[in-house]
Structures are given as C-alpha cells and as structure tokens.
C-alpha cells in the first residue's frame, strides 16, 4: 500500500474567494396558495385542507398547497377518464404530438422562473436546476412529442394502443424533471394523466400545470393532485386507473406492487439504489475524483442512482481518498440560489434526520467519518459532504440507501472482487466504472447487474436514454424507445 502524499496534487489552494452571486428570485411568481389542477383549472380541494411548503434553505413558508383526499383523487380520475374517452384518444396522433411540443417550448421560455422555484422549493443549487433539471424537463417533452405519431415503428408486428388513465407518483429530488419524465411519454402514447407531486416539492409541478393550461392542452388530459402519502395511496387504489408509474423508495414500491396484485393494472417502479462507483488503478485519477464528487454529491446525494459506494482499487486507494478529501474541502455549501453553490440544502427536516441517523450509525458500526469542515448556514437543513472509510460490507451505510451526501468507501484488489462487491446488494439501478482500458469497461459493465452503467462518467441523463433498475431498484424503463412500452398496450 502506498502512503503519504499523492504524486500529483491538484492545486485548489488559491487566494481567490468567491464573491456571493445570488440569483434574484423576484422573477419567479409564486402564488400564496395553490388549489388542485383538475379539468384544466385550479380548483379548491374538497378536503378543504392546505399545507405549507417551505424553503428548506431558510425554513420560510413559500406557499400553501392543497391536500387532496380520496374524493379529490376520484374527481381527478373521473375527469381524466372523460378526457381520455372523449378527446385525447380520438385526436390524431400528430396533433397530440404538437401539443406536447408546445409544452416543451413554453418550459424553455419560462426556464429561469422554473429554475428559481425548483431551487427555492427543493433546496438544490440553482446551477443544477438551471443547467440540468429544467433543460432536461423541456427535452423530455420535446423528445416524446415526436413519438406520438410514430409509435407503430417502435414495435414491429404489433399494434400499440394507449393504456388509458395513468396515475403517476413522483419524488422530491427532481420535482419538475420527474413530472416531465412521467407526463411526456404518457401523453405521447395517448394516455391521460393524474399526477401526484411529492409533498415537500409541489410548486414546479403546479407551475407546470400553468404551462399545460397555457398550451391549451384539452381540459382534463393532465391533472395534478397535491398531497402526502395518503393522496398517493388513494391514486394507487383507485379502480379506474389503468397504470401506475411510481418513482420513490423501494419500501413504498414494494407496497404498491403488492397492492396492485390481481388488479390487472400495469405498473412501472423506479426505486432505490446503492450504486457502486468502481475506480481502477489505471483510471485517470483526477477525472475519477471529479466523477466521484459528481456521483455522490450531485443534488446533495438525493439521487436514486447516486454512486453512494466507492470501490477503489487498493493500490490507488490512499491517493484517491486523499485527493477526494482535498476536493471535498473546496465544495461550496450554502445558499442554493447562489450560482457558485455546489451543495444546497437537504430537502426536508425529516430527510436530514434520516441522514444524521445514518451518520451516527456509520460511526457506531465502526467506520471512520470525514466531513467537510465548511460552516453551514444557521437556518435550514444542511449536511456537509461526508465520507466513510474502514467500512465493511455488512455496515448499514454500505447496504442501505441514505439518500444524502454520504459516501462509503471500500477497496478491492481484483476485477472479479470489484464486480462481486458491486453486485452484493439488493439494488441494481446504476453503476460506475473508471479505467482507461476499454476491454475492462465492457467486462465490468457487462457484469454489473444494473440498468444504467456510466463508464468514465456518472449521473448523466437524457430523454433518449432508457433509465431503470434491475433487482429491487424497480421494474420497467423510462425514457428512450424502451420506455414507451410502459405506456402502451401491445397486442
């Protein structure tokens, strides 16, 4: 084992300090209160109840959002069914596509507003919201719009037809992107939608409802019901839903799969992950260090496909860990609206508590913790980027999804050991491989049981690229040609 200073030290140590560069939030329009978006307009919930949505970076209330109960969900499903039967399923596919193109364009036009609200409501750095979430959301609509009148070419010798009314439940880590990711293919395939955003991040979905209204999408084709888990549960259990698309935790996914048993409803599940990011000794180490940072600290680690396990070849382990710690110290943590910010706020108090319990557990189980020493703001929910060394395969921080900026580092000697450690998990969503040797990429990539393999890169997404897990990371794919079948009946 090599020890001491790495041969080539990246020099992050400059005399320059970043000045604050906050994005002005006054361009974003947030109403004081939002109803449910049903039948093309915002309506008051039958439940009569609203809940606060806060900015996790300041804990200040941003708006009040309707809490839909089973009656509200029923109403939304009825409206969606009507829109399906009377309008959307009868429309010429090319026209359907044109509506979806319109949505894509309006999102692009209002991109700044979306980026700001996404950052305010969810805590993610504006740089990520601006450069990733919002453009990708528009791209998802643009890509799928074109499929609307071309579906026959996607499935040779079969006749695709829409599923009907689909219920979609999305998480809080990429609120707008997940909404786009779900709604766009559903519409392109001729279905109507009832979407439930996550409780803590409803605002951009409601702003998307405005876009949908402004695009003159026929009333009732997309309906958005906000609320907590009980709203989602009402949607899953509604008799007149033909398909459920869920992104969230494996535990909830399991419950949904169980409760859909025997109903004949289709489902796709995008669930948790515990991806191994494998660094071989022959990798370009400095690039790999950047890759590790992106893999685990992107979006505060609130990413189901995050590279939360680092497997590093023993001969370069010390070098990689040293460089990684140095690089972590340069990460800028704080105001999500600041354009220099790398690490924003943890999405909610509940999530922060969960992450902190893993930090404690990790140490109690005997691992060694390292955290960025950067000071975090006094208000809001914050977790400094964290890594654990001296971890064993049996440790909770290796086996369980933390969903935060927490990296568990293990070492290996041989390729086979790396593969076997990478696969030693019930999850199978993604995996990373870093090496300059092409044949090794194909070998390792082939043998990792996961739906997405990033080789010499990590956390890349595109609407043309199918995404989804093996094993307990989910069922089905979203995006690309392969994602279409989830929203079609194929005879």
């Amino acid at each position, binding site marked *: 084992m090599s020890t001491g200073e790495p041969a080539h030290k990246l020099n992050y140590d400059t005399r320059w300090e970043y000045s604050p560069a906050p994005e002005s939030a006054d361009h974003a329009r947030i109403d004081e209160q939002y109803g449910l978006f049903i039948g093309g307009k915002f309506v008051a919930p039958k439940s009569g109840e609203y809940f606060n949505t806060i900015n996790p970076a300041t804990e200040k209330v941003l708006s009040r959002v309707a809490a839909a109960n089973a009656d509200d969900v029923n109403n939304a499903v009825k409206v969606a069914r009507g829109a399906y039967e009377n309008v959307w399923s009868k429309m010429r596919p090319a026209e359907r596509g044109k509506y979806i193109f319109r949505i894509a364009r309006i999102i692009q036009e209002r991109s700044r507003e979306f980026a700001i609200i996404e950052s305010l409501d969810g805590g993610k750095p504006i740089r990520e919201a601006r450069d990733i979430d919002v453009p990708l959301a528009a*791209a998802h609509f643009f890509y799928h719009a074109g499929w609307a009148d071309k579906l026959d070419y996607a499935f*040779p*010798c*079969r006749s695709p037809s829409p599923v009907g009314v689909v219920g979609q439940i999305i998480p809080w880590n990429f609120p707008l992107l997940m909404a786009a990711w779900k709604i766009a293919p559903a519409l392109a395939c001729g279905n109507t939608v009832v979407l439930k955003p996550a409780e803590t991040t409803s605002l951009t979905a409601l702003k998307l409802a405005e876009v949908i209204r402004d695009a003159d999408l026929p009333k009732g084709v997309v309906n958005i019901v906000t609320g907590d888990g009980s709203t989602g549960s009402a949607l899953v259990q509604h008799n007149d839903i033909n398909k459920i698309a869920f992104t969230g935790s*494996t535990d909830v*996914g*399991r*419950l949904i*799969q*169980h409760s*859909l*048993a*025997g109903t004949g409803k289709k489902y796709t*599940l995008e*669930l948790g992950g515990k991806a191994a990011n494998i660094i071989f000794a022959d990798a370009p180490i400095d690039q790999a260090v950047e890759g590790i940072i992106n893999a685990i600290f992107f979006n505060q680690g609130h990413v189901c496909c995050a590279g939360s396990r680092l497997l590093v070849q023993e001969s370069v382990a010390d070098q990689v860990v040293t460089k990684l710690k140095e690089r972590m110290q340069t990460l800028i943590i704080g105001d999500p609206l600041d354009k220099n910010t790398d690490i924003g706020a943890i999405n909610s108090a509940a999530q922060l508590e969960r992450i902190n319990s893993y930090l404690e557990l990790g140490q109690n189980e005997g691992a060694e913790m390292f955290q960025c020493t950067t000071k975090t703001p006094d208000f809001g929910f914050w977790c400094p980027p964290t890594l654990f060394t001296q971890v064993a395969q049996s440790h909770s921080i290796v086996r369980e999804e933390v969903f935060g900026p927490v990296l568990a580092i293990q070492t290996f000697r041989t390729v086979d050991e790396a593969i076997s450690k990478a696969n030693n998990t*019930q999850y199978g969503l993604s995996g990373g491989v870093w090496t300059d040797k092409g044949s090794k*990429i194909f070998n390792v*990539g*082939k043998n990792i*049981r*996961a*739906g*997405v*393999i*990033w*080789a*010499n*890169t990590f956390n*890349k997404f*595109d609407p*043309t*690229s*199918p*995404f*989804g897990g*093996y*094993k*307990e*990371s*989910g*069922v089905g*794919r979203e995006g*690309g*040609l*392969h994602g279409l079948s989830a929203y079609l009946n*194929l005879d």
Partner: protein
Amino acid sequence: MDKKNQKRTTRNAKQKTASKKAVSTKIKRPAVDTPVEKARLQVNKTYKLYINGKFPRTESARYYNILGADGSMIANMCRASRKDFREAVLAARKAQLSWSNASAYLRGQILYRIAEMLEGRADQFAAELCATGASKSAAAKEVTAAIDCLVYYAGWTDKYQQIFSSVNPVASSHFNFSILEPMGVISVLCAPKSSLLGFISDVAPLIAGGNTLVALASESAPLSAISLAEVLHSSDVPAGVVNILTGYRAELVEQFASHMDVNAVVYNGDDTEEIKLIEEQAAANIKRVIIRRQGAKPGPYQISQAQEVKTTWHPIGN
C-alpha cells in the same frame, strides 16, 4: 399394490387393440395371453425430477398418480417439495452466469440440438401424449410443432438483440447504447394443461434469452416435460439451466412467486386467484411478473419480455 397392478394389466389388455401401434416402451405392456414361457416383462420408466443436470427423486419421497385417458395408472410422479424447489433455484443460480455469458451462437446451437434430439425420439413423445388422451394424429402434430418451435427459437438467439437494442442519440458528448440482458433466474409455472408443446413454448424463449429456470410442469400432464429432461440432458444444455419439477401446483405456487433469489416469475394461465397470489408474493423482492395468456403468439417478444434493458454511457473525447 399387487391388486392394483393386476387391475392395470387387465385393463391394458382390453385396450390392446385400440392402441396396439403405440410405440413407447413405457405404455405398451405385455398381453396376458402371451404364453408364459415367451413373455417378457416390460421395463417401466421411473419418472423423476430434473435438478442441476441430475434426475433425483423428490427429497420428500412423496408421489402422486398420473392416470391415462381411460383412468388407468400410468406412473407415480414425484410430488416435489419446497425444498426441491430451493435446490433447483440454487442450481439455476449457479448456472446463470455462464449460460447468460454463453455466446448467442452457442445458445442457438444448443437449442437446435434439443430439436435434433427430440426429432429422434418423436415416437416416444407421441406415445406418451396418446397415453394421456391425445389422438394419434394430434399427438404427432404436437410433437412436430414442438420440434419446430425449438428450431424457431434456436434461430432467434443471435437476432433478438439486434432488434431490441439501440444506440441512443443523447444530446451531450457521449456514446450511449442500450442492450438486453437476461433477467436471471426465472420460476415458471406451466399452463395447467400444457404438455409437450406448451412446455417448450414456455421454456424455449426464456433459455434462448440466456435465463436459467425452474419449471413446474403441468400437474395433470407432466410426462412430456420430464421426458423432455432426458432430451435436454443429451443436448449439451448445461446442468442447472433448465430444472423441472412435478407436483401439486397449489402447494408450490407461493414459493415460486416469493423466493428471494428468483428474478422473475412466469405464469402461464388465467386463474385470477393464482395471479393475485403470485403478484402479491412477487413484491417481496420486486420480482418481475410475466403473465402469459393462453394462445400467446410465439415470437421475439416472448424473449424480450424476460429481458432487462441495460444502458451504458461513455464520454466521447480525447
């Protein structure tokens, strides 16, 4: 037992004229009017399970009877236990990596080899089908259809990937492609009435796609499936790739759906109660549930439905 045997022999004698052209050594039994000094007692086959390339009896040592169309006893079948199933899953898991990594060309040749071996034993399979009630012409037709089905999927092994994989034009500077990979270990509940053709239609597309499996043969018509194990055994199908159990569906169906090291369960049939049970149990490990209704059309989609999609990204640059 003696009494029973006697009854069987008598009944067989009555039947003799009707089925005198039956070829199988198993089914044809000596007629009672053969002079004793010339009589030769037929050697009957013991039907066993097929696990890990071997033919064990059920560890439970239990049995159940398979009756012919006329009610006569044809065989004591193994009534497999949950433990037999677990053993079979172990074998299928052990065989999974090498079978899924076998080249498409090799898998194609092995499927074709199964067809060759079956062709050579067509008469035996036809006789078995006749014994359980099929007419002679229907039996012959089923056997040839089964052989042709194997040849059909043998030809698909190196083609489905080209049809279902894709290069994805991502907007960033990356090369991005999606390919199919087998789901892994699959438990298969064969259709209640499926015999030879049904069994092969259930199983061939799964192994063509690199999966390994444990199949529960039709409870009432398991003969062909178990005899097919002998064909598989002599066709270079590696041990553990196909494992076949016989037994009571009701006492095994839950295990087939709930086992934590099974990646997918394929259900052939349309019993809504069973489907519900299977789907509930499958949730334990987010198992994929593939429901095949009767009369599903053969084709590459039968292969792709038991495949995962894997997408790989790599930067383009210097």
